[in-house]
Structures are given as structure tokens and as C-alpha cells.
């Protein structure tokens, strides 16, 4: 099975993140950039499927030059190769345009199965799997907590607010995964060394056949008008329990009309 895993480089969610003041895009320059955490689960799932059924695992990233670091990190877990769509014209692209570029690249790669994280930690928008599936005319099974592959038949178990549902489709398909699906492996030393030699193909916009006017700020379908830091919350009253902590807590709740 030919599996492509979508990987996004994001600013570390454990650190302070901001938008740039000059063009309102995510500030990646001053951030510690990492693989989107949920994508590691997608990579793990791809590797497990390959181990059970054979095939090839390709990492696909759209992002600036520095996304190379995340691609090498992804490869160190075990995928065979990577494709990096990189082009200065892509800076400022909206989700709709991003899905156009990724779908075009996927069309060239001819994947049986596209795996990705259910959301990224920067945007948390969750739209990419369905946008890509809509463009490719394939099924999208999203938010998988369990994925079973039997030949071309895919079965996904996904959490819903009322319980869970079981959804089926045939390849080709896009499947997004939650972090409940598996436990991603740590790259071994051997894996890290091997990743340095694995092929990383770079593709420009022209290579994937998308016009510069369709992406970036020119092609954006939405725009940030302004942004500001939310004033940080300041801690209120803090007491130490000396036997009456529970009562005092309820007194506070009562003063705020919650009790």
C-alpha cells in the first residue's frame, strides 16, 4: 500500500506563540518549530500498516525551507522518503489554497491512503482532511481512534459526542487520527542516522501545477484584519487550607452566584 502522511511544522505549543505584526501570519521565525504532535500518531499508524501489509510510506509537507528539520525528524521514525512543497509564493496561504496545493501534490504521488493528524496545534482548524478529500473525490474518515486495513477496505472507529461510530470506506481515502489511536515510537539512533540519507524531493508550485495567483496573500480567501494579545489572566485570591478550605471555596462560589 502506498501511504502518504501529511506532516505540518508548527510552533511549539508549549511555548509562547504569536502572529507577526507585519503580515499577520504565524510567527515561525522566533518560535521553536516542531512536528505537529498529532502527525506523529499518523506516522506511527502508517508504519504499522506498512509493517503488516507492505508498501511504502511517504511524508508530504508544505512549508518554508526550515520545515526540512521536521521532515528529517519525521523520517527518523521510519518512513521511506519525503516530498516537500516549498515556494516563496506560498507564504500567507489560507486553508482553502493549502488544500489545493496538497491535493495537487497528492494527485502526483498517487496515494492509496493519506494519513494525517486530526488537527494541528497552531490553527486547530480540522478542515484539511475533508478539503483534500473533496478535491480528490475520495472518502475522508476523520478523527480515527482505531483503523483497520483489510486489502482495500478501511474501517475506522471514531469518537463522537454521544459515543462512537464505525465508518467504512475503500481506498483511496484520507484518514485523520486522534492521539488515542496508538503510541508513536521514538526514533532510534539508527533511524536518525538513516533519515539523513533518505530522499527528500522538493516540489515548487510550478511542479505541482498551481498558479502563484491561487495561493499566498493574493489567492487567500480570508484575511486577518488585526490581532492583539489577550490580557493575561491575573490570579485572584489564593488561600491555604487550614481546615476550612472547602467551606471558603463554596463561600466564594456563592458570592459569584454559582451556589
Amino acid at each position, binding site marked *: 500500500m502506498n501511504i502518504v502522511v501529511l506532516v505540518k511544522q508548527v510552533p511549539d505549543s508549549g511555548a509562547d506563540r504569536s502572529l507577526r505584526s507585519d503580515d499577520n501570519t504565524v510567527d515561525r521565525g522566533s518560535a521553536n518549530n516542531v512536528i505537529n504532535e498529532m502527525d506523529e500518531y499518523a506516522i506511527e499508524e502508517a508504519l504499522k500498516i506498512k509493517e503488516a501489509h507492505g508498501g511504502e510510506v511517504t511524508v508530504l509537507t508544505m512549508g518554508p525551507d526550515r520545515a526540512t528539520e521536521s521532515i528529517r525528524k519525521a523520517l527518523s521514525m521510519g518512513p521511506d522518503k519525503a516530498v516537500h512543497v516549498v515556494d516563496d509564493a506560498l507564504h500567507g496561504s489560507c486553508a482553502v489554497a493549502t488544500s489545493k496545493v496538497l491535493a495537487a501534490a497528492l494527485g502526483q504521488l498517487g496515494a492509496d491512503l493519506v494519513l494525517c493528524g486530526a488537527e494541528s496545534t497552531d490553527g486547530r*482548524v480540522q478542515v484539511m482532511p475533508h478539503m483534500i478529500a473533496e478535491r480528490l*473525490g*475520495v472518502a475522508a474518515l476523520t478523527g480515527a481512534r482505531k483503523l483497520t486495513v483489510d486489502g482495500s477496505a478501511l474501517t475506522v472507529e471514531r469518537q463522537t*459526542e454521544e459515543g462512537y461510530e464505525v465508518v467504512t*470506506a475503500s481506498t483511496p481515502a484520507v484518514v485523520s487520527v486522534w492521539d488515542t489511536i496508538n503510541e508513536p515510537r521514538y526514533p532510534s539512533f539508527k533511524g536518525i542516522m538513516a533519515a539523513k540519507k533518505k530522499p527528500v524531493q522538493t516540489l515548487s508550485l510550478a511542479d505541482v501545477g498551481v498558479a502563484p495567483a491561487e495561493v499566498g496573500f493574493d489567492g487567500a480567501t480570508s484575511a486577518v484584519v488585526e490581532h492583539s494579545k489577550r490580557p493575561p489572566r491575573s490570579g485572584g485570591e489564593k*488561600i491555604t487550607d487550614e481546615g476550612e478550605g472547602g467551606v471558603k471555596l463554596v463561600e*466564594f462560589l456563592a458570592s459569584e452566584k454559582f*451556589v
Partner: protein
Amino acid sequence: MSEVLVVVEATREFGVKKVTLEMLTLARELGTPSAVVLGGAGAAEALSGKLGEYGAEKIYAAEGEEIDGYLVAPKATVVADLVARVQPAAVLLASSQEGKEIAARLAVKLDNGILTDVVGLAADGTATQVAFAGSTIVKAKVTKGLPLVTVRPNSLNPAPAAASPAVEQLTVSVTDTDKLAKVVERVAEQKGSRPELTEASVVVSGGRGVGNADNFKLVEEIADLLGGAVGASRAAVDSGYYPHQFQVGQTGKTVSPQLYVALGISGAIQHRAGMQTSKTIVAVNKDAEAPIFELADYGVVGDLFKVVPQAAEEIRKRK
């Protein structure tokens, strides 16, 4: 005034969700609200009373196995056809997984911009969003097409405004491509009478400090006394104390209730990502240096196994 389409979010168990009422309230500021019900046979009939109560002037319904038996693709096709026909001023969906997914497909079908996790929408289409774990406020606009936005639950107070909507059944003409992802089984899990996590006005969450799954009864007890939902930190979920669907924070749910009660939660940034826009936050933790106290309007440093039962007793006394 132009129609504003509100794609209804409802559950089998509780009917119309609060976020739908919020969207209808918001839609009234922008135009004439029309509710769009996408579900099983008879769904619109069951929901029309509530939708009318909150100002839906019209209800469009697409019902049946063709809609309900698959993941979101058929629903997106129906809404896209409706948008082309009625040319609404805006389309509002819930910022839930399904709402975002329908919106995603609509954006591609209509070649239209999309804004998610919107907490406010002005008449000129300027949306307010909260980004980066609640630390950044963004004003953004759709610059291509109509405002297509997903609204985050608990963004505004729903206000009733009685209307008596007529139901129009839509002709459903979905393609084979829309039916590639088939739902073969839906399993309801016991959740009792507690409100849904993202919609609840009170959320009581437990963290690693709760210690084990059995002790979560304490968290549930406080939640029930306050009429709230139960949440859990990632540490608690990863330790197997509470199921994943109740996880609050990064890789879990984002909540924005009137009151958030954090019990035995240290307040790692990944947890704060999911709760720091809550109106009032209180915390109980034995570590006086826990970062949760930086957010808490009221904090108790102490043993939660002493403080929480005493608080429960005090609430009962006052009832």
C-alpha cells in the same frame, strides 16, 4: 433582509444544542435566520419548536438515510445547493468536528473563505476568533465569497425571539462520491444526565492529583451539585482515570464555561489551551506553585481529598 443559514447541531438525546440557539441569536443580527436541519427522517419536525422559539423564520430539512448514513459529504452537498439557490448573507455552523467538516467541504465546493472557532461576528462580516490557546484575539474576514463561519459554543448568550417557521423539505440529490464514507454502526455510550462538555455553563475537571479512576467520583459529585459537566486533564486521561472524550485542552476539547473548577490539575500550558477563556476559574491543588493558580480567580492550596468533600457538604447545606 437576506437569509442567514444556520446549520443546526442537535443530538438524538437532548435535541437542539445550545450552540444552535447561539447561532440563531447571532444570525438575527445579520439578517433573517433560516435553520437547516440535516439528519434522519423526522428530524426537522422534532426540532422545529425549539428552532422557532429562538427566531428561525424558516426551516430547510434534508432527511433520511442518504443524509444520515454517511459522514459529512452529503450534508455539504445539500448545503452547497441551498447556498446557490437562496444566496444567503452568511452561513453559520457549529465549531464542532462535524460543523467544521461540513464547512470545509463547502469552502472547497463554493471556492469560499472559511473562518473557524468564531466567538463574534459583526454585521460587516468581521469575525472575532481566539487563537493560540486563548492568548491571542484575531479579527478576520472572509475575502472571497460569503461569510462562512463556525461558531464556538458558549460564545454568546442565546436569547429567545418567537417565530413560527414553516418546514421546507429539500430535494436530496447526492452523488456516489458523497457516499464513500458509510456509517455502519453508531454506539451510544452511557453519559447520564450531565450537560455536554463544550456547552456546559459549569465544568468540573480532575487531573493527575485525583489519583485514580475511582476517585473521579469526587469530581463527578461536585459537577452534579453544580449542574455541570465533568472534564479531565490529559494527564488524568493518559493515566486511565477518565475517558478521552472528556479531555480538556490541546488534543481535547476547548471549553469556555461561566465557571471552571480545576481539581488536582497543575495547569500545564496544554491544559490551559482548552479552558483559559472560562469566565471564572477556581482551583484546588496541593502544590502552591502550580501554574493553575496564576489563572484562578480563587485558589485553595490543600489536599483535595479534604477540601473537596468539605465543599460538597457545604454546597448541600446551602441547597
